[in-house]
């Protein structure tokens, strides 16, 4: 039996821990995760406001509760008691459905996040994770793609231009960055030999995947910011262009749900990053020397600490970077992140195959060499052909230099390469160049 199959079977065995909880325990776990998320969101909003204030040399909310900690709770109450507004042009059913669709998947994703090892809860031994199954990460992925519907439908149902543009942007953006995100998972799948989250945490006992697969980690970190619509990729709600983007027309609890979903998504992608790349709930090195670090309820602390490193990075980015231009952002996603991930997966797959087979056989080396030479030839030929074709095209299509402001009977702007013709004005305008006119005006 080769090592891959060995590790697969081991991973399947860890999954046998799941699915045996009594119903009451499952309910306790679900409610526990729900409560944890609500509290974490309130804390994260406060943290973001305070940290951004600190970075901008302000104070931030500090009135309600100690250090202003209860500010977000009070804001939530305020939102709940505000007047509900339905835009006249809104599609009412979808308008109400959208915030729910955006919020529910955000919570659902946490069902498979491993918060800790097996603990004893009311006399029953159970893992600190609601559930797990062989395709847990695909489940997260599916849930994330459902969450996009909330935003897109909110944009559509508002019956207003800015939200529609925001919705369009977000759907294009999240689909694009989801691809890069999914490709960054592949490396982890290859080396962990499983797609279950608990199995991936178990696969990082010796070395974190974040250190082993640095490119995957970097790509994931970039894609997760794009996926959550956070600065500097917050184009769907770019306030300088789209007012508020998809949630422009939303108020009260419905707006609060979007807000909640955004922050939960931020926590979710941070939690996935922790699970996949930073060893999940396992204690980091100096602490892991202590035997009890990875047992009982302690690992929740390590997990949350690692997760909040990512949350802090999110806030830091927001406080530091200006917003990307939309075309630059899409170009980066499609022409840099995705090809880079694919190339990296190719390299990883080769390494992994050779690793599993145990030998760097001559056949393998020759095959790789041929592949590399072929790619180089292809690249060389392509760039030469491209240059020739371009020159031919430019030669065949000379640019008409004369600009006709009324070409074809319509007022038209100058084409690229054309320039404005000298000024012709009505007779009652003061004649001449700017300098001449100014001289005349000053003199007169």
């Amino acid at each position, binding site marked *: 039996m080769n090592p891959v*199959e060995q590790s*697969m*079977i081991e991973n*399947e065995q860890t999954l046998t821990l799941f699915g045996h909880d009594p119903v009451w325990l499952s309910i306790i776990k679900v409610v526990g995760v729900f409560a944890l998320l609500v509290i974490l969101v309130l804390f994260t909003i406060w943290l973001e406001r305070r940290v951004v204030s600190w970075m901008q040399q302000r104070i931030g909310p500090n009135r309600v509760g100690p250090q202003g900690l209860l500010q977000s709770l009070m804001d939530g109450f305020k939102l709940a008691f505000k007047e509900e507004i339905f835009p006249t*042009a809104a*599609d009412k*059913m*979808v308008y109400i*459905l959208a915030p729910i669709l955006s919020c529910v998947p955000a919570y659902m994703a946490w069902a498979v996040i491993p918060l800790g090892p097996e603990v004893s809860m009311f006399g029953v031994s159970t893992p600190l994770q609601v559930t797990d*199954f*062989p*395709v847990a990460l*695909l*489940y997260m*992925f*599916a849930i994330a*793609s*459902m969450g*996009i*519907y909330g935003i*897109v*439908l909110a*944009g*559509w149902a508002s*019956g207003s231009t800015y939200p*529609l543009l925001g*919705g*369009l942007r977000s*759907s*294009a953006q999240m*689909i694009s960055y*989801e691809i890069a995100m999914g490709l960054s998972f592949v490396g982890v799948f290859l080396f962990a030999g499983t*797609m279950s989250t608990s199995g991936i945490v178990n696969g990082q006992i010796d070395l974190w995947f974040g250190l082993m697969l640095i490119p995957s980690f970097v790509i994931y970190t970039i894609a997760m910011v794009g996926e959550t619509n956070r600065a500097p990729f917050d184009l769907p709600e770019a306030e300088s262009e789209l007012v508020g983007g998809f949630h422009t027309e939303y108020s009260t609890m419905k707006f609060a749900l979007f807000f909640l979903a955004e922050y939960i998504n931020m926590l979710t992608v941070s939690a996935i990053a922790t699970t996949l790349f930073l060893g999940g709930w396992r204690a980091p090195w100096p602490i892991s020397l202590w035997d009890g670090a990875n047992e009982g309820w302690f690992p929740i602390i390590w997990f949350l600490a690692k997760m909040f490193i990512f949350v802090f990075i999110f806030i830091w980015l927001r406080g530091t970077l200006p917003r990307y231009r939309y075309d630059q952002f899409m170009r980066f996603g499609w022409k840099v992140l995705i090809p880079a991930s694919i190339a990296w997966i190719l390299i990883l797959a080769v390494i992994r195959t050779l690793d599993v087979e145990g030998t760097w056989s001559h056949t393998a080396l020759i095959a790789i060499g041929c592949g590399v030479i072929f790619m180089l030839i292809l690249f060389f030929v392509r760039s030469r052909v491209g240059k020739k074709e371009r020159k031919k095209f430019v030669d065949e*299509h000379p*640019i008409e230099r004369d*600009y006709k*402001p*009324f070409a074809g009977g319509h*007022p038209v*702007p100058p*084409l*690229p*390469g054309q320039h*404005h*013709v000298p*000024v*012709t*004005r*009505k007779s*009652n*305008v*003061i004649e001449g160049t*700017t300098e001449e*006119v*100014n001289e005349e*005006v*000053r003199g*007169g």
Partner: protein
Amino acid sequence: MTPTPISAAPEAAVAMGGPFLFWVCAIIAVAGAVGMLVSRKAVHSALFVVMTMISIAVLYISLNAPFLGMVQVIVYTGAIMMLFVFVMMIVGVDASDSLVETLKGQRWLALGTAFAFAALLIIAISNGFGSIAPTGSIEAANAQYGGNVQGLAHLIFTRYVVAFEVTSALLIVAALGAMMLTFRERFAPKVSQEEMSIERFKRDKHPGNLPGAGTYARHNAVDTPALLPDGSVAHESVPNALIDRGSERAVNRADVDEVRTISEGFDYVDGDSVQLDEEEGQ
């Protein structure tokens, strides 16, 4: 005994959640399909399809095919239906379907095809009921390679590798074809932001924003040139396109004089007060 749909709902469903789950998902799926047909707005139809697809995905999962279920949600609801919604949003909220039939005899053709499809379905399903000879349970297939995902991987990358690759090649060709069809040729090489910025500073002009039309003027129309604080006329404030067509509005000499008088007056007052202060200080 002829198996009813409940017992035909495979044993795996019983193991995961029983016929209860099957019936809930089946009802939702059918309701979604019907809703798709009867709803008037295209986006509503798309949402009903999403509903159907998700309940089918749940059924797959309950039948011990979790990978298929998840891929169903990711690919069909997450990507394909999202693209549909995307297109509908571009088309617009108020866009209503044209009721003029452009294809001749389309209704009769559709009706005929529908009957043919129904016949096909009925024959297939009744055949299925007639000969229930399970060729092997999914549990056995899953167990063969250590799990559902592993089993699928073995099949896709060994037995069906050619079919899989050909399908993906087909999709890539289709995508490339779509890109070629919508490709727009450029008149000249695209200017990058960096080049634009360099170009801007090379020109012997002020690199900053142009003065807005109507600044210090008596009109804020876009064809009225701005007056600068010293009363001079800023022709740059009028869009080039308007200047090219000779539509730049005349500057009223009285306005120019007024602005200059005001600005000079302020200068005078300022200078005066400064002088007064200095005198008092002395």
